[in-house]
């Protein structure tokens, strides 16, 4: 069943490829149908999911017995919310691309390909399989940026590919080290988690840890290996940016939670201070640099660095075994996973909203705008809602996640939590200032004829934001789901 949910988008891609390129409406409907069906199947999987029962829907087929590699998939309370987010965000992005008219067939084909690759990263329970999907996302994203991006897209796409490939290969090194040190040799994540092959420490453990840290850190991205992100976001098409921020960045943090922390807890504990530090630096640096941006998409990109910084800080604190207790760890871990979901929804919406503006103005420069709330009241309202969600307004999902992160981290490393709190203050000011610059003040007459949110744009955006509100008001259901897995993980982390 999980395999079906995983490869449905790929089937959709094949269907799209088999159709004539001129029939755009048909292509759109087929692609949307595939993405919609995928989402429906994932919702079905979620409804049938037994909270707290560990990995479910597992299937495992030997694949390369010579290397102990299998096709192993399964979901638990950490990966299921992320997979649901992926399916939802791809659906929303494809809806938001309704007016895309350039090379339509290839456009939908690449997006559906990318969807399977992203889902694969979250459901893979074999490191080899995980790595395959991980690298395939690079290919998909490369072509989406290079083909449908803005003026500097090809250079940005190349930078994205090269930079993140460095991360991939560091990851590959870590994977091989884990494989060679496991006994019996395996690449199965569950088995490796049980084995903890590098518990004894030593230089191989350090090598594996830093290789994986670099691999996941580039993807997240953590300061100082974040520099690929702003140009990639700035040049990508809006839907591509939404996926990049909403889904691809989560792969980095997911790697921390799924692989680095559970398989190498001893080494992680040794360097947890470094992870916390990197998280805090990303929080503050991302927020400060975002302040200086005049390009709307770059601004959102830097707030992403800031938001992912919270996640890393929390994960680092969780791994700091010398401090805190299991309750604090569970809380911080819940916050981290929820923040991934929440950031995906909110930042995905923000990038799609930036795309709305691009369709009308072909411009992202904040200084060129002003008073847009007059011609586009619904747009202004929607944007303001997303911006408030992003700055962590209580009652919205970002607040729930960040609150748990801060409370949990405070119980382990109060200084880090206190420092990171500055990031919240800065982003709050930043978003208010941005809203003021874009939507208030005098209206440029060239912008007076802009039409408000179109039908399909509302269909794409409002469900995402409704979910943000729903999680903000009733977070219980998703926290229960997440805690089914994080509780187990936190309980295993004892000094």
């Amino acid at each position, binding site marked *: 069943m999980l395999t079906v949910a995983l490869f449905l988008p790929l089937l959709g891609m094949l269907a799209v490829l088999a159709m004539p390129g001129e029939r755009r409406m048909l292509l759109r409907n087929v692609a949307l149908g595939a993405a919609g069906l995928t989402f429906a199947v994932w919702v079905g999987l979620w409804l049938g999911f037994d909270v707290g029962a560990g990995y479910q829907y597992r299937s495992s087929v030997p694949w*390369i017995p010579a*290397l102990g590699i299998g096709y192993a998939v399964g979901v638990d309370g950490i990966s299921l919310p992320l997979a649901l987010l992926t399916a939802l965000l791809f659906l929303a992005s494809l809806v938001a691309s309704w007016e895309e008219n350039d090379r339509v067939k290839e456009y939908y084909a690449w997006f559906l390909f990318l969807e399977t690759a992203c889902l694969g990263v979250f459901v893979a329970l074999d490191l080899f399989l995980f790595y395959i999907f991980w690298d395939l996302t690079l*290919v998909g994203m490369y072509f989406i940026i290079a083909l449908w991006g803005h003026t500097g897209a*090809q250079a940005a796409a190349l930078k994205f590919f090269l930079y993140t490939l460095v991360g991939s290969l*560091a990851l*590959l090194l870590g994977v091989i080290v884990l494989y060679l040190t496991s006994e019996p040799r395996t690449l199965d994540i569950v088995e490796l988690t049980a084995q903890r092959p590098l518990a004894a420490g030593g230089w191989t453990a350090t090598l594996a840890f830093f290789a994986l840290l670099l691999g996941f850190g580039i993807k997240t991205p953590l300061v100082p290996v974040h520099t690929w992100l702003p140009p990639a976001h700035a040049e990508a098409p809006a839907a591509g940016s939404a996926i990049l921020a909403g889904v691809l960045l989560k792969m980095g943090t997911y790697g921390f939670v799924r692989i680095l922390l559970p398989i190498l807890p001893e080494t992680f504990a040794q360097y947890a201070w470094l992870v916390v530090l990197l998280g805090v630096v990303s929080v503050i640096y991302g927020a400060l640099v975002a302040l200086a941006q005049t390009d709307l998409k770059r601004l959102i990109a830097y707030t992403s660095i800031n938001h992912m910084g919270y996640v890393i800080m929390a994960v680092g604190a969780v791994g700091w075994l010398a401090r805190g207790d299991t309750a604090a760890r569970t809380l911080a871990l819940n916050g981290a996973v929820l923040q991934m979901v929440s950031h995906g929804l909110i930042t995905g919406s923000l990038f799609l909203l930036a795309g709305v503006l691009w369709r009308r103005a072909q411009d992202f420069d904040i200084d060129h705008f002003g008073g847009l709330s007059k011609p586009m009241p619904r747009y202004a309202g929607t944007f303001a809602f997303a911006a408030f969600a992003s700055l962590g307004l209580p009652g919205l999902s970002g607040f729930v996640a960040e609150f748990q992160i801060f409370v949990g981290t405070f119980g382990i490393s109060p200084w880090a939590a206190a420092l990171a709190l500055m990031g919240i203050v800065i982003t709050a000011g930043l978003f208010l200032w941005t809203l003021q610059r874009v939507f208030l003040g005098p209206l440029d007459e060239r912008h007076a004829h802009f039409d408000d949110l179109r039908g399909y744009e509302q269909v794409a955006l409002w469900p995402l934001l409704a979910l943000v509100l729903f999680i903000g008001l009733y977070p219980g259901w998703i926290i229960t789901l997440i805690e089914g897995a994080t509780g187990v993980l936190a309980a295993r982390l004892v000094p």
Partner: protein
Amino acid sequence: MRLDLILPLLVVLVGAIGTLVVGIFLPRARQTISAWLAGAVLVTAAVCAGLQLAFLVPQFAFDGSFAADGATAWVQLVVLASALACVVLAVPVFRNDAREAEFYALLLFATLGALVLAGAADVMEMLLGVLLTSVGSYPLVVYRRADRLALEAVLKYYLLGALANLALILGLVLLYALSASTLLSDFGGLAPTNTVAVALALALTLAGLGFKAGYVPTHYWIPDVYQGATVPVAALLSVIPKVAALLAVARLCQALPEQLGWPALTAGLAAVTMTWGNLAAFRQNDIRRLLGYSSISQAGYLLMGVTALTDSPLALAALLYHFVAYAAANIGAFAVLAASGHHTIAAHAGLVRQRPWLVFAMAVCLLSFMGLPPLAGFVGKFALFTAALQAGWVWLVVLALINTVLSLYYYLRVIGPMVLQPPRHEPVGSGQGTVIALLGGGLSLALGLGAYGLLGVGKTLTLLP
């Protein structure tokens, strides 16, 4: 004397002579028959090699001078299949050439040399294989005598080849002098007492074999020859001598005692070769030259497998698997050039609008070189890197990973314009090229996805002595 142990060699030998003789009697207009003949010979030999792979108990033939083992049969299969693909590619290029029939005879002789080299367990046999491939392939490169680039290429190829073969002879003679035997199986007793002579013998032999395998420092001919020769010949030379010579290097190194320090030497060669090939590929605008440098860097990765040979049980399987991955991707990439009829990156701009499947094949082949999962090149590299790490070569693996990142840049430089830019030229190449390109691309994908058993088969094979 068991002739069945060298059946593929005999088939190709008889076939080569037969093709030559038949060619004499064929009327000019119908000489393409000799291509069919050569193809039939190669298929027959491949069937023999396949049977050997499946049923033969590893053993020496002819008093220990020829190793009829799994690795030999495997590499012979790779060589024969690649040669067959090159024959198919050559048909439209050499149709109605004044010396059409002789081309296929020469191709078979060059292939025969590679088959001998693959199984050589005696230094004289090794030399025989190297010389036979050399002599067979010199005229292939300059088959179009009016072409100035081809003339320049063959001159470089021939002069450097003569020098490298001389080095090989010197090295092998020294090995003989030190061990009092020409059999590789007798080299196990070589003691590093006479350090200078041993080091010299090792260096000269490896440099000599490097001419065929295409690694530093005897790799200089590769880009010029790939550019100057016709595409089918370039495809042939990029695979056949290379895999055979690398197996010979592996066999030789494995026979030597490890105290001689050969792993350090091959590790150094691997490091320099992959880096050199990659960096030189950066600025190439002619895809044939770019593929040349890429094949040099691939030789570097393959040498990692040789380096790990005695310390990792996975190394031989990794090496053999990557031979297949390399051959499929390389033949496929050259076939794309045969199918498009162009050579430069710029001339292929926008090809995706004209021939999407060709671009698909090219992208799969090049990304397989780079090592993108789940393509065959990735599995090969994964296995090679794992073997090297297992043998303790951490720095080499890190360097190889860095090189992999670098290589992405120039492979994307080829794929990028094909997909992103508007078309400039009409493709003018052959249909055979398209077929082989799709086969190469399809294999690169299929060997990665489905036929993972291949690595398992590789693990069961032996490399004598």
